[in-house]
């Protein structure tokens, strides 16, 4: 195949997949605002719909989408199937941006959003397998890892674009304008339709996968891909091995490096919005080329041990890395001497309750806000009278410390630490498309690889925050206890993968 042709195959596939990830992420990133607009507190039905929108889309509908579109891809072809998923994803994302809020149309608003979110999950379940299969089936054996690794960059680039677009919109308007019913939070959803139109146009010009076309012309396509994938023992045992020996661990490493890290910076370290987002953006920008590097290297030395090494490093180093993030944002370490009170804002929450926000800067360039809720005339008087926080700290100050901003040195140290977490993601994720493609025959490849991929990423990866909360509630004394879930799953997968998988590169995927 000509270099220009394979480049356009990769570009068309990657652009569409990246857009799908972008579409899926913006809902999660704007969940707080979406919740206010569509799922108001105090309404039991809205709360139920909110839960379903958040959990069912990832856990149930994604694997279901893998089955539905995987089957379709093995029956009618890769090209039209992943065109369909792109249109479904882009259309539902755009429509979410058009649904009036709960205040305007009542319960119809959360119902419509739930329906559209479920379509998003369904489409995402079908997209990845199609794109990975399509590129792999255009690639020569000695470059399959390298070419498919471009598809692997899309999940992270989708996150990068989603973070960037939301940050740009949010920083260019007041919070009230962003959070209003028809406010700025809708812009990222509307932008999606432009991206999708361009991507559909490009994909329409592409031809069908040559391997699938050959199979079809020979009349050898599967009559029942679901049955052949999961009811034929020889293939089903490979599906199980792919799930428990590779994708399960890859899913938790992927989720921990990209989403748990971001949530940890915001909710555990209490970093301010802009700094936590830019740390992620820098780390992603620096780490993304490594997807391609590991894909390329996997063509030389095999896929298995690159992925296993990524899991091993995660098992060994997650706790030290997250512990450093937590320690470096500890208020006592952040202050290191006197902190100067630069601003005090107060707001009456009720007639007798006042919210006090004292903004401090420290001598080493950090800053933070001390948030207190108190009855009138007690803490307010006390805190307002101090100029140096070091003396306040020694007096057992109540309240919480939020919107922390670390100094330049610590900022870049955090970029390096998050980079390392995403570097591990690139190790486990870069070679996995080629690895999965090589495990299954052409006629049931789309179906067979899509289901373990979406169970690994959607279910095992998606459970990281929930199990983390479960563990934190059960063992509150350890702030890092939530990490035992990804560590445990990665260790289990590492053991299964090391023992059961082999490191052979399949030269022939045409069978």
């Amino acid at each position: 195949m000509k270099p220009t042709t394979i480049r356009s195959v990769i570009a068309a596939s990657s652009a569409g997949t990246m857009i799908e990830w972008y579409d899926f992420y913006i809902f999660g990133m704007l969940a707080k605002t979406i919740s206010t607009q569509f799922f108001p507190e105090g309404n039991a039905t809205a709360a139920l719909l909110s839960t379903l929108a958040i959990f069912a889309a990832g856990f149930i509908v994604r694997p279901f989408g893998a089955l539905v579109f995987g089957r379709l891809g093995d029956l009618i072809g890769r090209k039209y199937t992943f065109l369909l998923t792109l249109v479904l994803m882009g259309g539902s994302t755009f429509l979410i941006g058009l649904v009036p809020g709960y205040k305007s149309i009542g319960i119809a608003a959360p119902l419509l959003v739930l329906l559209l979110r479920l379509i998003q999950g369904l489409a995402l379940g079908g997209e990845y397998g199609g794109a990975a299969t399509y590129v792999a089936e255009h690639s020569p054996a000695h470059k399959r890892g390298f070419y498919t690794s471009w598809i692997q960059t899309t999940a992270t680039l989708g996150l990068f674009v989603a973070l960037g677009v939301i940050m740009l919109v949010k920083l260019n308007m007041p919070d009230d304008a962003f959070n209003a019913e028809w406010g700025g939070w809708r812009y990222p959803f509307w932008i999606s339709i432009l991206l999708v139109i361009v991507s559909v146009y490009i994909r329409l010009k592409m031809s069908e996968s040559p391997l699938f076309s050959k199979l079809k012309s020979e009349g050898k396509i599967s009559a029942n891909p679901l049955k052949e994938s999961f009811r034929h023992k020889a293939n089903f045992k490979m599906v199980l091995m792919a799930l428990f020996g590779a994708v399960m661990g890859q899913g938790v490493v992927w989720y921990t490096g990209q989403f748990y890290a971001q949530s940890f910076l915001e909710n555990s370290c209490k970093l301010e919005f802009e700094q936590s987002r830019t740390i992620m953006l820098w780390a992603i920008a620096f780490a993304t080329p490594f997807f391609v590097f590991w894909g390329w290297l996997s063509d030389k030395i095999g896929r298995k041990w690159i992925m296993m090494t990524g899991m091993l490093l995660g098992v060994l180093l997650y706790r030290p890395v997250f512990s450093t993030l937590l320690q470096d944002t500890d208020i006592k370490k952040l202050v290191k001497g006197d902190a100067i009170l630069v601003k005090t804002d107060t707001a009456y929450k009720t007639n007798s309750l006042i919210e006090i926000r004292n903004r401090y800067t420290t001598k080493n360039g950090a800053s933070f806000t001390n948030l207190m809720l108190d009855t009138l005339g007690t803490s307010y008087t006390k805190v307002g009278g101090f100029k140096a926080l070091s003396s306040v700290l020694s007096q057992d100050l109540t309240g919480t410390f939020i919107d922390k901003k670390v100094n330049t040195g610590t900022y870049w140290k955090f970029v390096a630490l998050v980079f390392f977490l995403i570097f591990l993601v690139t190790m486990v994720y870069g070679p996995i498309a080629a690895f999965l493609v090589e495990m299954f025959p052409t006629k049931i490849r789309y179906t067979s690889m899509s289901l373990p991929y979406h169970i690994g990423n959607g279910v095992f990866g998606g459970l990281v925050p929930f199990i983390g909360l479960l563990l934190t509630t059960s063992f509150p004394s350890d702030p890092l206890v939530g990490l035992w879930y990804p560590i445990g799953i990665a260790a289990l997968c590492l053991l299964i993968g090391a023992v059961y998988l082999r490191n052979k590169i399949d030269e022939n995927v045409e069978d």
Partner: protein
Amino acid sequence: MNSVKRALGFIWFILAPAVVYFLVDRAIVHIDPAGKKDINNPVIWVIIIGIFTPIAIGLMIFGWYAIKGEYDHLPESSSEL
């Protein structure tokens, strides 16, 4: 290596029901209609246990295949699948 694969199969076979038991046990402990956290929400537990149970069954089958030596030889080409 094949004997290790088979021996480990027992662990996967036992681990699967243990995980489901753990989840059901934690659900009983944490479900609380008055609670406001995700882990107090029965709907989430139903979804998670509902989706995890077939996965656990898959792990049991994986263990069973391993015990029976199904993974002693991995297919060399698609003709073996």
